[in-house]
Structure formats: structure tokens, C-alpha cells
């Protein structure tokens, strides 16, 4: 099923169109670059033939030197983006694979989030980092990471994830308009997905989206796990289990209000995450609800990457380690019980 958010009637000024996730990102970049001359796009191979994942098609022709091809040096060009941002530009930086974010580790941990603070608030740092994340691509151990939780603890940063064409468009526009550094996570397994896009809309910062309402269990997910959770909800419906599915969207700040309100109704929380559970947003959400004294009807659960396992290349093995709709449904069934 398509998402409630996207199925909602287009507000005035929005034109609804069906786009692929890839083209929705392209449209968000195009609309922001058209609206504001200070927005620029930079990264490795971004100018050639739409870029590696073809998200940038047409932009170099349209915006000329505002689309900048960089040498291979993530930490360096992330620092360049910071320098641009404190000099009046709003750079959007493409990181070809989330696995390369740690190569820019100093810029992400010590520079972008702290630059304003160290100066006593003299700067704003409007940098958007587009991070291509996730598995299913058979890219193996060093090219399949979802870095969505890596930097979630860092004050000064915002972290957001896009699970559909509609949310990718609205969230990327919100990220580019934000006056603080934002890590915007895309999933390489979703580029071909089609969905409704409210051209012109800009998402609200820090708001999760309830995509499917239900009364028995709340499934909380991001990125590719959102569509798998929606598929799981369909499987559960067949068993008479009514699942609510929430797209967390923002990892920092966490929208605990939306999640908490849902879990107070359903009494059950199931995290569906394409990451290891330790140190992730799923564990953080469960911890916060537990500290708030959530009255669970059943213990919360998480479907995550298997503990102490890395992402393999071997195709059947990669499929086996990534959480599936079936696995999500299975755990939800156990939570709801007979």
C-alpha cells in the first residue's frame, strides 16, 4: 500500500506527481537549487552522466559551476563544504556509499557539529550530506553500510532517513533549508521505487510519519525496512493482527512523542532496522520509552542485522542477513501471541 502521508490530499500549491525515488531526489535538488542560488551540489563524479546513482541528471547542465566534481577525498571536501557554508553557501555533499562517511570522520564529528559552538554561535553551518546507504546491492562488506545511527549521539547534527519517493523529496528539501548540518540518508535499494510526490512540499523537521494505523503492535522502521514493515503488516492483517507502521524519518532529533503515543495505544513496539541493534536508534527509542515507564503489553522486540555478523557479498547470504517482511511478521506474531 502507498503511504498515508503521500495519499493525503495535496495542499494548495502542491502538484502531485508519480516519481521514482531517484527522480524525487533529483526534483528536490532541482527545486532547491532553483529557489536559492546559494545551494550548490558537490561530490565524486556528480557531474558525469547523472552521477553514480543517476540522481543528479540534468543538474550540471542547468546549474553549471554550482555542481562541483570533487577529487576522491571525503574528509577534505567535507571540510570544503563547511568552509563554503560559513561563507554564505548552502552545500549539498554527496557521499557515494555510507561506508565512506568514516573517511570524513573528523569533519563529521569534530567540525560540522562543533564549528558554531566553538565560536560562541558566530556561525551557522547549513551543510546537507547525502549518504547513499544500505544493502541488497551485493556490494559486500565495505559498501553496504547504513550509517544512520553512527552519528546520532552528536549534538550539533541532524540525521534523517528517506523511505519513499514522497518522503525523500520533502525531507531533502527540509534538510537543505535547515541552518545546521544534516546527514540525509538515502537507500540504494530504493532508487527505482515509484511513488507519489507532492512537488513543492517541505517536510517538518523532527516529525515521524504514521504510514499505517493499527491497534495491536507498533512497527517502527527507517529506509528499506519501512516498505518491508508495510509488507509485514499486510501478512499480519491476513492473520487478523492489526499493525501500525511508523516511518521514524528523523534519527536526530528522535520523534519520541509520535512513537510513544502509538505504543501507548498498541502496548507493543517492534523495531525493524537494517543495522546492528547495539548503539542504534532502535535501542535508544526502547530505552527512552522504558525510562518513561511505558506500560508494555508485551516486551518490545527488534528485528536487526544478526549479532556478530558482517554483511556478506554472497547473494543468498546477503538476503539471509537483511531483515525480511516475513521475519518482521513472525516476531510481531510472537509479541501479540495466540
Amino acid at each position, binding site marked *: 500500500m502507498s503511504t498515508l502521508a503521500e495519499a493525503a490530499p495535496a495542499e494548495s500549491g502542491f502538484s502531485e506527481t508519480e516519481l521514482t525515488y531517484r527522480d524525487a531526489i533529483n526534483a528536490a535538488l532541482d527545486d532547491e537549487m532553483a529557489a536559492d542560488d546559494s545551494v550548490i551540489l558537490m561530490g*565524486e563524479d556528480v557531474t*558525469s*552522466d547523472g552521477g553514480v546513482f543517476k540522481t543528479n541528471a540534468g543538474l550540471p547542465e542547468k546549474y553549471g559551476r554550482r555542481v562541483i566534481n570533487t*577529487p576522491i577525498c571525503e574528509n577534505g571536501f567535507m571540510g570544503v563544504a563547511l568552509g563554503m557554508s560559513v561563507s554564505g553557501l548552502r552545500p549539498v555533499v554527496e557521499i557515494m556509499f555510507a561506508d565512506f562517511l568514516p*573517511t570524513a570522520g573528523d569533519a563529521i564529528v569534530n567540525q560540522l557539529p562543533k564549528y558554531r559552538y566553538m565560536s560562541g554561535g558566530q556561525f551557522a553551518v547549513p551543510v546537507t550530506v547525502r549518504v547513499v546507504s544500505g544493502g541488497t546491492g551485493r*556490494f*559486500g*562488506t565495505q559498501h553496504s553500510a547504513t550509517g544512520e545511527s553512527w552519528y546520532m549521539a552528536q549534538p550539533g547534527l541532524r540525521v534523517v532517513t528517506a523511505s519513499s519517493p514522497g518522503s525523500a523529496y520533502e525531507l531533502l528539501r527540509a534538510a537543505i533549508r535547515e541552518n545546521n548540518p544534516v546527514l540525509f540518508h538515502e537507500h540504494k535499494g530504493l532508487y527505482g521505487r515509484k511513488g507519489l510526490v507532492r512537488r513543492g512540499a517541505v517536510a517538518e523537521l523532527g516529525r515521524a510519519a504514521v504510514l499505517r494505523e493499527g491497534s495491536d503492535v507498533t512497527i517502527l522502521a527507517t529506509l528499506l525496512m519501512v516498505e518491508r514493515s508495510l509488507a509485514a503488516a499486510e501478512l499480519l492483517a491476513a492473520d487478523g493482527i492489526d499493525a501500525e507502521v511508523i516511518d521514524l524519518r528523523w534519527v536526530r532529533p528522535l520523534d519520541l512523542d509520535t512513537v510513544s503515543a502509538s505504543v501507548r495505544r498498541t502496548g507493543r513496539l517492534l523495531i525493524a532496522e537494517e543495522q546492528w541493534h547495539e548503539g542504534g536508534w532502535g535501542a535508544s527509542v526502547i530505552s527512552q520509552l522504558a525510562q518513561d515507564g511505558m506500560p508494555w503489553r508485551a516486551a518490545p522486540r527488534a528485528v536487526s542485522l*544478526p549479532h556478530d*555478523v558482517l554483511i556478506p557479498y554472497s547473494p543468498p547470504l546477503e538476503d539471509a542477513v537483511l531483515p525480511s517482511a516475513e521475519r518482521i511478521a513472525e516476531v510481531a506474531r510472537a509479541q501479540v501471541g495466540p
Partner: protein
Amino acid sequence: MAEDAVGADRRVRWYRQMVEIRLFEDKVQELFMGGLIQGTTHLCQGQEAVSVGAIAAMRPRDVQTNTYRGHGEALALGMAPETAFAELMGRVAGCSGGVGGSMHLIDTKKGNIGANAIVGAGLPIAVGAAMAFKLRDEPRVALSFFGDGATNIGTFHEALNMASVWNAPVVFLITNNLYGEYSPLRTTTPIDDLARRADPYGMPGVVVDGQDVDAVHAAVSEAVERARGGGGPSLLEMKTYRYRGHSRSDPAKYRPEGELDFWKSRDPIDLLGAKLKAEGKLNDPDQTALREQAQADIDAAAERAAESPYPTLEETRGYVYAG
């Protein structure tokens, strides 16, 4: 293998290795299109003389690190095509049990201590191996293969600086194929001869004809033996070209008209073939026969590899932590 003088049979063996690599890569492309190999592949047709000439300059206990475009080095180091195909197909018979894939053809027993999917990551690792040899006073050398694009990332600079200040027995080998992914060298790098990047570390930098396996072998041998003798690291730039796109099904539209043809006119296999023929060491019928035999071997290796099963999660758990 590495000790004997550079004689006819040895260069005939190089010729055979280059043909094997060429046909292996062609087969990989075919299997990728057919779906038996998934994800990504980075092929090295056109660069065979670099892999073969440089690896031939290594002695038995020497080591090297290479990259996701490392099939040529892996095969030149003696990995069986069947083992390599099995890895690319994600099967248990692969060198990494199928979990690594195309970007990680590794065989530490053959001195292949790393094939890295992160640009520039292999250089410091080679320096580390060289420092281990040096600290134990072993007469061993480490090589590091990487591309032109990798000379722009910090690890290149950090590795060369450390190698020089510590006088580590390591040789840095740039396979300059003129492109980093879809970007021509000139759009990311302000100079043409990357060997120039050796001077600020006080080490020799040499430009080498990467199409001529004899030239590659001579230059790398000199650098390797200098390092072994305590003469320190050096930086070698191999001028070459990749016939295929960067990866997968990249059509390489970014290349100027005629560039590919120009480089094919100096094909490394043809160049050595012509020399061996002129020297009366391998005439046309021999070359044809050798090629046909190699093709048959490659096809058979791919078929046998496809019979190997996929690994189970249980079989791979031990790959994460050492006991």
C-alpha cells in the same frame, strides 16, 4: 618462480598470464551480464602488463596489497581462475569463502595480503607489512597497487610520508589508467605525471610505460631490490588504460572519440606477442594455440566454480572474530 633470469620461457609465461587475465576478465563481464556474478565488477583489460610485470618482480616471501580492480594481480600471483570465479560467484570454493566477492580476491599464502574496496586504504597497510619485515630484519618487500585517483586521498600522502621517514621497504605502484571512475585525471588532479608526487617525500619517482611488460618488470625490479637493500621506498607510475568502463555496465561515455582505439593499438599482449615472435620464441600458431588453450581453461574453470555451493551463515560466522 621469481629467481630465474628474465629468459624466453619466463616471458612466454608472462604472455600466457596476460592472456589468462584478459580472458578471465572477458568471462567475468559475460557472467555478470548473465547474473551469475552480481553486485559490481571492476575489470582490468588493457592493464595486464602492469599486474604481470610488477608481480614478476616480487620474490617468494614478498607481499602486496591491491584494490577492487585486483583480478590481474590475484591471477598473476597464482590464484587459480576457478578459485577466483568461485569468489566472484559467492561460493564456498572462493578464496574468501564467497563473502568477499569481486572486490576482495585475497590469498595471504601467495603474498596477496589485501584487496581493498576503499580507495587509498591499501597503502598504509603495505607500509605496515614493510615495517614488520624491517623490525624483524627480514629481507622482504611490500608492494602496493593503487590507481591514479587514489593519489588525491589523504592516505596516499600519509603512507608515502611514513614510508620515507621510516625508510620502509615498500614500493608504491600507481596504475594510471587516466580515469577515476567517470572523471578524467585532469578534472581531479592538477598534474599529468603522478610520479612527480614522490619528491616531497624525498623518494624517487619514475614514469613507466605500463603497456610494455618488460619495462614494467625492469622498473619494479629495480625499486623492489633497492627497497630490499635498505635503499628505501619509491613511487612508480604506470601509464596504462582500462578498455572497459569503470565498473558493472558503465558504457564509459565520458571518453573522447578514438582514445580507446589509440590505446588498443599498443595492447600489452600484442606488444609482447610481437616481440616474442620477432625473437623467434613464440610464433603466430603458438600464440593462437596458447590463446585457445587458455580460453578452454577459463571456460572450464568458470563451469567448475559454478558447481560450488553457496556458503551458509554458520560456515561464515568464524570469519568475523579470530579465536
